[in-house]
């Protein structure tokens, strides 16, 4: 059992948990994730390790309430215990001194890009960060990202914070201005990561993305997390989650992410979230 030590609402529908998991915290590296199961009936859901404290034995998880499992998770309170939590899974990010790196986070993707950005900063890279959200009240971790970036650009769909537009607009401008970039790391919704990869492709700048396919076990046993990279099929949970954005088959990834759309709807309708949920009303 894994106790929730702290809970914070970062934005509407985006929650942060600090969870006591000393053994996992001890081994966690940027870019890795955990899989948790809230309770006996729960599904196994993957969440990135958004931060960790080895000494305190704590993992930070930041998640968006998109469906039934994440909504139910969001109803848990400090002192509650998550039944199962396994990790750290996946390969860690390759942290080196590349030179100048651009770290891009979109929406809740800012959470997983944060520890990678920090590690790249600590490895003496010059870090330019670009973060974006739908609007100002949806933008998370702005101050924390500012602390670890040499430059921070902000974009919002509605222009309520930073420049109006997408993170890719900022990236396109940097590339057009011939800013020399040695590596781009992008994490966010699939269409965002795809757009970043398309923008950087003509410039030949290495672009690393973190894939978030549907998973079950997270140990390489089921193959649910297949992504096509170049001419190979990879299992994101053991071969990734980070891949070369220029080689990912985005069309396939987007189709696969919709595999259980009908069931996801059914799950919500079947739950208290379909109607009037107590813990949702409290907010």
């Amino acid at each position, binding site marked *: 059992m894994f106790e929730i030590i702290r809970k914070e609402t970062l934005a509407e529908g985006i929650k942060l948990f600090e969870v006591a998991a000393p053994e996992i915290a001890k081994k966690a590296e940027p870019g890795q994730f955990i899989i948790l199961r809230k309770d006996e009936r729960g599904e196994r859901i993957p969440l990135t390790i958004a931060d960790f404290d080895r000494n305190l034995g704590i993992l930070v998880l930041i998640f968006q309430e998109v469906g039934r499992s994440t909504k139910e998770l969001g109803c848990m309170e400090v002192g509650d215990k998550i039944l199962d939590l396994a990790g750290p*899974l996946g390969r860690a990010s390759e942290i080196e001194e590349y030179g100048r790196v651009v770290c891009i986070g979109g929406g809740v993707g800012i959470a997983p890009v944060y520890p990678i950005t920090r590690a790249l900063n600590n490895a003496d890279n010059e870090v330019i960060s670009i973060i974006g959200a739908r609007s100002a009240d949806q933008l998370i971790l702005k101050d924390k990202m500012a602390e670890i970036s040499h430059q921070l650009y902000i974009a919002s769909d509605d222009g309520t914070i930073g420049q109006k537009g997408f993170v890719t607009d900022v990236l396109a401008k940097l590339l057009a201005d011939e800013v020399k970039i040695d590596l781009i790391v992008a994490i966010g919704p699939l269409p965002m990561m795809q757009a970043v990869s398309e923008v950087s492709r003509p410039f030949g700048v290495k672009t690393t993305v973190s894939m978030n396919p549907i998973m079950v*076990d997270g140990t390489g046993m089921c*193959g649910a997390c297949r992504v096509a990279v170049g001419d190979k099929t990879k299992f994101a949970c*053991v071969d990734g989650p980070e891949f070369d954005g220029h080689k990912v088959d985005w069309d396939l990834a987007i189709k696969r992410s919709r595999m259980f759309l009908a069931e996801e709807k059914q*799950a919500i309708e079947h739950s208290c979230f379909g109607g009037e949920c107590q813990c949702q009303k409290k907010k």
Partner: protein
Amino acid sequence: MSKEKVKIERQSMPHQEAAERIQNFSEVALGYNEEQALLEASRCLDCKKPTCMEGCPVEVDIPVFIKHIKAKEYQMAIDAIKMKNNLPAICGRVCPQENQCEKHCVLGKKFTPVAIGRLERFAADWEFKQPSETRENNKGKSGKKVAVVGSGPAGLTAAADLAMFGYQVTVFEALHTAGGVLVYGIPEFRLPKAIVEREIQGIKQLGVEIRTNMVVGAVNTIDELMKNGFDAVFIGTGAGLPNFMQIPGENLNGVYSANEFLTRTNLMKGYLFPEYLTPIRIGKKVAVIGAGNVAMDSARTALRLGAEESYIIYRRSDKEMPARGEEIEHAREEGVKFRLLTSPVEIIGDEKGWVKALKCQRFELGEADESGRRRPVAIPGSEYEMEMDTVVMAIGQGPNPLVPRTTPDLQLNRHGNIIADETSGQTSKKGVFAGGDIVTGAATVIQAMGAGKKAARAIHEYLSN
């Protein structure tokens, strides 16, 4: 040979009728009642040289336990079995007996062999109905600690035996439930999870600690276990890496590995969705590629999940199908359709990325290959399409690489299996032993248990010196 004994016919197994059982996930074979067990036991000739035992990988003393059943000494029967086999309720259900103990029974030469597996199951099920007594707990008597990685039959057997030798044993399991393939692979209707759970409780009573959610290679490595106080390690991580065929369309929505399909259904209880939150999508027509136990389980599961048609697609002929005879028979009774000498060449999708059809090619049998089986040869121009909603790949599993990847001095063969001595399980690394599917490639429950047993003995020897 006494005439009377052979006059009694092999007792058939009571079971749920096909039409009824495809509506539920309850066990198909119901087990002998006492009368049937006594009749069946009376068929055994109590041979001086019991050839049946040669066929049992863990050498269960078959004539002795059957003799106890005959005398209604059920406790003694189960005790005799447990001398060699910690998981009789499981083996009695899933051992491929026709290729093992029963294949070697002398009665099989002229008549039908004694139903050894069913009697074993009877004895184990009898014991479960008795008030449980606490088993002796030798925990830590020896003062030494052993880590077991993986809680499938290999790991559980090694753990139980090591605990009985007096070691403090900790089992590390990656998933949230112990049992390996017994819980995530083999379906409820063939092996009720409550039985696995009870067997595991028994092992816990021996003082074995089972830690779930511990992915070795991620949260700790073999070297770290050794450094942190474990005197020896047994690796029983199984063959958990699903193979795909590398044909076009395999990443379409609706294509599952058998592991994913069965894990969603069994471990995550997808058949209870949305009560349980893990979904499984099935459609009307399901094709399962392969003809082993895994394939039969998948095809039969598909029917229970509501598929209207469920096909087994297999490259060779029915003689070569590797599944247990009983499972093939059950699948046929339930209406699974067999397309033999047939293999898929492409999975065809619709514009949204969903499976629409399966393109297959016909085969004929050619010359025998090195395994002695006649090699299937494709018939040119014989391709045809079958409409399909779901395709399940059940063409075998490879070894999971998580442990080897993080233990560089562990020698592997070219398939990625850990190289271990056949009699001791000793690997290339000092103090590290391995057994089960991770060493042999996908095999059987009882073989994995046999390997766990041998390794426990070897570890005991290693730690006693």
